[in-house]
Every structure is written in C-alpha cells, then in structure tokens.
C-alpha cells in the first residue's frame, strides 16, 4: 500500500490518530491506551499485515517520553512508524510481546534504560544492566552518575 492508502485505511480504524507525512516513514501518533488493540489490527488485518517489528525504542523529550515502533510488512512491503506519548514520571504502556515476539527483549531494554513499565509483559527484568541498577534509568537526559560516566 502507498502512504496515502495507509492513511485512509488507518483513519477509518482509528479516527483519533494524528498522521504525519514527510520524514522517512508515515508516522502515526496515537494515545498509549489505544496501542494494543491498534497493534493487533496492524498485525492481523489482511491488507496491512505488519508482521515485522524491526525497531522499538523510546525518546526522552524532558517533558514526556515517546515510544517509537517501526513496523514493516514483509508481505506487502510497506512500512510505518507508530508513536505513543507516555508520562515521564510514571511511564506505562501495554506490552506487544505477544504480537511480535522480538518486542520482549526490546521492551526489557527500554524498561531498564528509560523506566517505561510494560503492562502484562511476561518477564520484565533488567536485561543489559547489572543487578542494582533498578530504577536508575541511565538513558534519561537528566541522568548523572559520577562513577559510571557515560559521555565523552
């Protein structure tokens, strides 16, 4: 599908979504509460079939965090980006690890680096950071650690 067709198709399913065109991919901004049902639709709808989550990450905007999901369909060869704003103090969003299995590791990484809590995640623990780093959120912009200095 072209970006225009994707826009129409998604606009019907989720009228509250704000769509941006212009960067590399078509970007869909949604509410965090809509995410799981929307993800199910993206994965399972016959004309969409976004079966490959190739990147999952988070950006700290100092006032809020944004979850960024890069999706591709290996069947229809189209791509899009879904973004969901989450609260910075108490970030929460539903997991999609049951839809795309790769999300399990990626969500654990975002959890330890940004502190985003993925609801219903099967195994939300530290993955890369060693024990004792719970709650420190090193990828946040205001993180300072004089011992483990991570800048050049």
């Amino acid at each position: 599908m072209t970006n225009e067709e994707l826009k129409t198709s998604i606009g019907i399913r989720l009228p509250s979504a704000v769509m941006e065109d212009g960067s590399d991919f078509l970007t869909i901004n949604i509410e965090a509460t809509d995410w799981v049902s929307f993800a199910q639709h993206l994965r399972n709808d016959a004309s969409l079939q976004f079966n490959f989550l190739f990147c999952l990450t988070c950006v700290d905007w100092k006032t809020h965090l944004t979850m960024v999901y890069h999706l591709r369909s290996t069947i229809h060869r189209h791509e899009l980006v879904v973004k969901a704003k989450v609260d910075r103090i108490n970030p929460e969003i539903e997991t999609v690890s049951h839809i795309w299995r790769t999300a399990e590791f990626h969500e654990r990484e975002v959890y330890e680096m940004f502190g985003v809590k993925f609801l219903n995640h099967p195994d939300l623990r530290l993955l890369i950071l060693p024990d004792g780093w719970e709650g420190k959120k090193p990828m946040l912009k205001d993180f300072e650690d004089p011992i483990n200095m991570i800048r050049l």
Partner: protein
Amino acid sequence: MFEEVGTTTEGDLIINVGPQHPATHGVLHLVITLNGETIKNVEPHLGYIHRSIEKMCESLTYRQFIYVTSRMDYLSAHINNHACAMCVEKGMQIEVPARAQVIRVLMDELTRIASHELWWGAMAMDLGAFTPFFHAFRERESINDIMEETCGARLTMNYMVPGGVMHDLHPNFQKRVKDFIQLYKSKIHEYDEMVTGNIIFQNRMKAVGYISPEDAISYGCTGPVARGSGVSCDTRKHYPYEIYDKLEFDEVLETGGDSFARYMVRLREMQQSIRIIEQLIDNIPEGDFQAKTKAVLKLPKGEFYTKAETARGELGVYIVSEGGTTPYRIKFRSPGFSNLSALNHLVKGGKIGDLIAAMGTLDLVIPDIDR
C-alpha cells in the same frame, strides 16, 4: 549469579554457560534449565561488555560518533560506519561521488567475506574441528592486509565518513584484491571437502535449531538467520543503497530453517560477495573520493532512519535531531540483539549437546548485542 547454579524445586538442573566460554564467542552468559539432557529454558544474561554507546553518541558530533560504531559489531566495522554515514548524508542531503560509492561497496563486501570466514572457522571449532579455523584465517588475513593498507587498521577501520571515504585507495588495492579472489577461488573447494561434506558435521547440523519463517519474522531475525528459513530479507535487494541496484548478485535463500541451512546461506553468500567484487574491481570510476562538506555538520530538525545489510543482518540507524551538532537521540537496531532473542525458541526441547551447534549458526557478536 552463582546461587542460580543448582536445582529447581521440580528437580531440574540449572547450569551456567559463560560469561567466559570459548563457544559463546565473547562474554555472553547463558543460564540453562535442564531436565536430564533436554533443554527446558535458556536465558541469556547480557551486558558484560555494555558501554552505553547510544548515550555516548549523544555527546559526540556527527563526524565523531561514527568511530564509536566500529566498536559495536567489530567484524562488520565497515558496514556499521557505512550505515551511520548514510544516515548523516540523508539528513544533510549530501550526494556521494560515484567513486566513493564503488569503494564503499567493495569494502562492504570484503568485510562480509572476512566476517563469514571467521564465523566458518569458529563454527567448525565449536563442533570440535580445529583445522578449518586456520584455513579460514589464511584467507581472512589477506583481506585484513588489504584493509590495513588502505584504511590503516585491520578491525576498526573508520574509513567511511559523511560524504564518502576518508582517503583514496592505496595504489596496490586493485592488484591485491585480484590476488585475493584468485586465492579464494583456488581454496573454495577445501571448505566443502573439509566441513560441508563431512558426515559427522552434517549429522550434528541437520534438524538442529529449527525456526519456521513465521517465527523468524516474529522474533525479528534478519540476515542469514532469517534467510536460512526462506525469509527474503536482504536489505541490498529490497531497499538498495549506493549502487547495489545496478549490480548482479543473488539473494541467497535456503528453506531448511535448521543450522545446516544457515551454514549453507553464509557459505553461498561469500561467493555472491566475490561476484560483486569481480564486477567492480576493474570498474572503479575516476573522480573524487569524498564530497565537499562543511567542517561542522548540523542535521536539520527531524528523524532519519537508514538500514544496511551487515554480515549478521539488518542494521538500522535511527537519529533524532533537534538541529544541533550532536544527535538528540540515536538508536542502533543491531541485528545480533534480535537474532539472540530467538535462541531460546531455537534450542528449547533439544539436547544440551545441540546448543552450541544452534548458537554457532546465529553468528553472535557480543558487543553488537550489548552495545
């Protein structure tokens, strides 16, 4: 960590593999739950070589951060640098001169061969055959010598810069590459004679570590791991960059989905890389090796994403720019990280002896996973 060794309440045995173990090719730590000889669960513990490269890059300029990325997947250093340089070029809208594009592709393919050579030798060593390692390193050495002459380094080349390559090719480059192709072609039959056709090797590789195409996609597998299951995912074919769309080469696909299929994909990929190099080595266009760029690079406000096919799969570089001289946020979608997430699925229900045969064909490079 050590208290995890022991038995569970159901009487299953818990053992550690790594972090220091020759078969993990680096500091990977696996906690394995065993019922007799059958694997019930494998849980990777990562981070022994985590350096927070993404955070570091936030304080480095667009020229500097590329050098850090050589240290991620050190066996595909060129291709890492290439993906990052392309992302900056996309943001700055820099045209790369034709000569630089050809040099980049030549270097990428040499890197791919060197990486697969090392994997081939190490894979055979994991299964107890020591000799192939030396044969693989004989060919790999001559690639490293070529790299050393032109780039000044053997592993972390740092040769790609935004706008092209850092300096021109060494005068010996063409001759040495041709010599290498000669050497490679005269030795290629040894690979099959020594390893591929070996019945013990085949018995250990076939029907081990099976992953279906649907699962491979769901687990985010790319590169030879996904192509071994028949998933067409070669970035060079589907999202061509530089001059890949003008070159003749095949995307290597196998349908077995087991360790042997992934092994065959990499072996055949080396031959495709040789084919690409042969097309280009006599046709390097004259001209600039680098576009004229400003001394200080500033990406416009926005988001940029590029993907490149490394030896391990699809590397994605995601830059969020606020218009400054350093990236606001940078994310490396490393192929190894996603490939590793499929490990538990690959070996669950199998025997402990097959773990290494399955893990070896994932071709893990730990710094690429930990970043």
